[in-house]
C-alpha cells in the first residue's frame, strides 16, 4: 500500500489515462424472475468521472450492488481492475461512499474515528494505531476541508460535513476508484456545489477514477466526463456535451424531461437560484 500522498506522478497519471477500470459485458440481473438490468454494456476508464443516471426504479441500485458484488448477474461478465467484484473488495482499490448512511446519530465516534475505520479495518489485529496513522487521518480530513472537526461527534455534523468525512474515510484506503451512491442526496445547493468541486479536484490532482450513481441528471452533467442513462438498459453512454438524443432521455426519464446543463464555471448561474 502506498504511504504518501499524493500517490502518483502526473506522468504516471497520464500514462494510465486510458486504462479501463470497470467493464460490464452483456450483464443481465433479475430479482425473482423479473429482469432489472438487461444486456448492460458499460465501461469506465482510469481518471474519468462517470455518472449513471436514471429515475427511481431504473436499476441504478441494482447496478451498484452488482458492481460491488452484493448481487450476482445471471448472465454477463464484470471486471474491475481485471478482477471479479468479490475479489476486488479485498484489494483496497475501491473507496465507497454509501447513500445517506442510516447511522444512528448517537453512534459514539468522532469524525477522526470514522476516517480511521478503513485504515484499521484492514490491519493485522495486533497492530496498533501509529503516529503516522494519526497524521494520515488528519491529512485526509484536511483534504476534504474537515480538519477542524476531527474531534467532533460524527452524529452531530451536518449532512454535507458527514458526506465529506465519509469521503475522507474512503480516501484513507488510498483507493484508485471511488464509487459514490447518490452523493448529493440531503445536500443543499451550496453543499452540492462544493462537493462536486471536491470530486473534480480529486480527479485532477490525484488522478482518481470516480463512478457515481444519481437520479439528478442536471446536477451531475456539468462535472462528469461521461454519462450513462439507465432504465433497465443503457440508453445513452457518452459525453454530456454530446447531444443526448431526446428519445434516449424520454426512454429513461419519461416525456417531460428538459435537460439543463449546469456549468460549474458559469459565474452568473448560481445567482438566480
Amino acid at each position, binding site marked *: 500500500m502506498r504511504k504518501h500522498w499524493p500517490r502518483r506522478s502526473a506522468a504516471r497519471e497520464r500514462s494510465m489515462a486510458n486504462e479501463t477500470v470497470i467493464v460490464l459485458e452483456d450483464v443481465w440481473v433479475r430479482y425473482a424472475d423479473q429482469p432489472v438490468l438487461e444486456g448492460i454494456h458499460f465501461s469506465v476508464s482510469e481518471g474519468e468521472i462517470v455518472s449513471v443516471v436514471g429515475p427511481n426504479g431504473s436499476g441504478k441500485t441494482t447496478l451498484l450492488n452488482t458492481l460491488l458484488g452484493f448481487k450476482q448477474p445471471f448472465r454477463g461478465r464484470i471486471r474491475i481492475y481485471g478482477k471479479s467484484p468479490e475479489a476486488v473488495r479485498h484489494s483496497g482499490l475501491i473507496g465507497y461512499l454509501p447513500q445517506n448512511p442510516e447511522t444512528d446519530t448517537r453512534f459514539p465516534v468522532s469524525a477522526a474515528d470514522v476516517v480511521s475505520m478503513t485504515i484499521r479495518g484492514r490491519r493485522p489485529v495486533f497492530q496498533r494505531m501509529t503516529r503516522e496513522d494519526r497524521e494520515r487521518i488528519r491529512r485526509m480530513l484536511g483534504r476534504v476541508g474537515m480538519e477542524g472537526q476531527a474531534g467532533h461527534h460524527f*452524529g452531530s455534523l451536518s449532512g454535507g460535513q458527514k458526506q465529506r468525512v465519509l469521503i475522507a474515510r474512503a480516501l484513507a484506503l488510498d483507493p484508485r476508484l471511488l*464509487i459514490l451512491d447518490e452523493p448529493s442526496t440531503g445536500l443543499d445547493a451550496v453543499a452540492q456545489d462544493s462537493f462536486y468541486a471536491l470530486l473534480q479536484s480529486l480527479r485532477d490532482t490525484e488522478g482518481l477514477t470516480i463512478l457515481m450513481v444519481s437520479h439528478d441528471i442536471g446536477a451531475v452533467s456539468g462535472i462528469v466526463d461521461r454519462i450513462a442513462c439507465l432504465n433497465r438498459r443503457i440508453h445513452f453512454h457518452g459525453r454530456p456535451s454530446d447531444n443526448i438524443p431526446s428519445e434516449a432521455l424520454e426512454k429513461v426519464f419519461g416525456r417531460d424531461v428538459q435537460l439543463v446543463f449546469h456549468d460549474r464555471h458559469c459565474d452568473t448561474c448560481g445567482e438566480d437560484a
Partner: protein
Amino acid sequence: MSELLSMQFFRNALLMSLLLSGLFGLLSFFIVMRRMAFLGAGVAHAAFGGVALGILLGIDPFLSTVIFCVTVAVVIGKLVRNGRITYDTGIGIFFGFTMALGALFIALGKAYTFDLSGYLFGNILGVTSRDLIWTAAVSVLFIPFVLLFLPRLLFMTFDERTAEVSGVRVGRLDTLLLIFLAVIIVVSIKIVGIVLVSALVVLPASFGLLFSRDYRRVLPVSVAFTAVMMTGGMGLSYALDSPAGATIVVLGTVCYFVAFLIRARPAS
C-alpha cells in the same frame, strides 16, 4: 456482608456476576448499535427448547442448550444476511417455534420435576463451579476477541456495507459475534433466567450511551454499570429475600431511567 460471602453459592454467584459484567458490558454495545436487541430475547427463548431437548434425550441440558441457541442465532443471521427475511420476522418465527418445541419436548419426556421457574427467571442457588468455569472460559475468548477486533467490529457496526466493500470480512465477523451472543446468553441463564436476560443485552450500552459520545468511554461505563447492577441486585435480593434475577433487572432498569432523566435535563 461477611456472612453472605461465607456461603459458597453466594461466592459463586458473585464471581459469576463479575464475569458476566465484562461479557454483557461489551456485547451490549454491538447488539444495541446494530439494533439487534430483539435477537437477544429470541436466542434466550430458544434456550428453553434447548434445555427441554437435553432432558428429553437424557443428555446434559447445558450442552444441548448451547448447541440449540448457537444454531438458532447463526441460522437467523444467515437468513437475514442472504436477504431472505428481516431480523424481526426471523426472530418472531424462531421465538415461537423454539418455545413450542420446548413445551413438546417436556411433555414427551414426561419431565414433570423439571425446574421450569428456575430456567425462566433464574436460580442463584443453582450456580455451580462448572457454570463458573464455563463463564470464565467464554470470558477468556470473548474479551480478547472484542479488544483485538474492535476496529473491525466498530466499522461493521457503524456501516456494514462499506465495511464489506472496504475489505472487512463482515460475514465471518458477524457469525462469530452471533455465536458469542448465544453462548453468553446461555451461561447467564442460571442467574437471570430466559425471560429476563434480554435486559442484560440492552441495558448496559443504553446506560453507557447516556454518558459519553466516545466509544472508548461508553464500553467501560457499560461494564461498570453491569457490575453495579448485578452485584447490587444480588445484595438487595438477599436483604429483601426476593428473587435475584428479577431484583437485578429491576435495579438496572430503575438506574437507567434515573440516569436518563438526569442526562435529559437541559443544560443550564
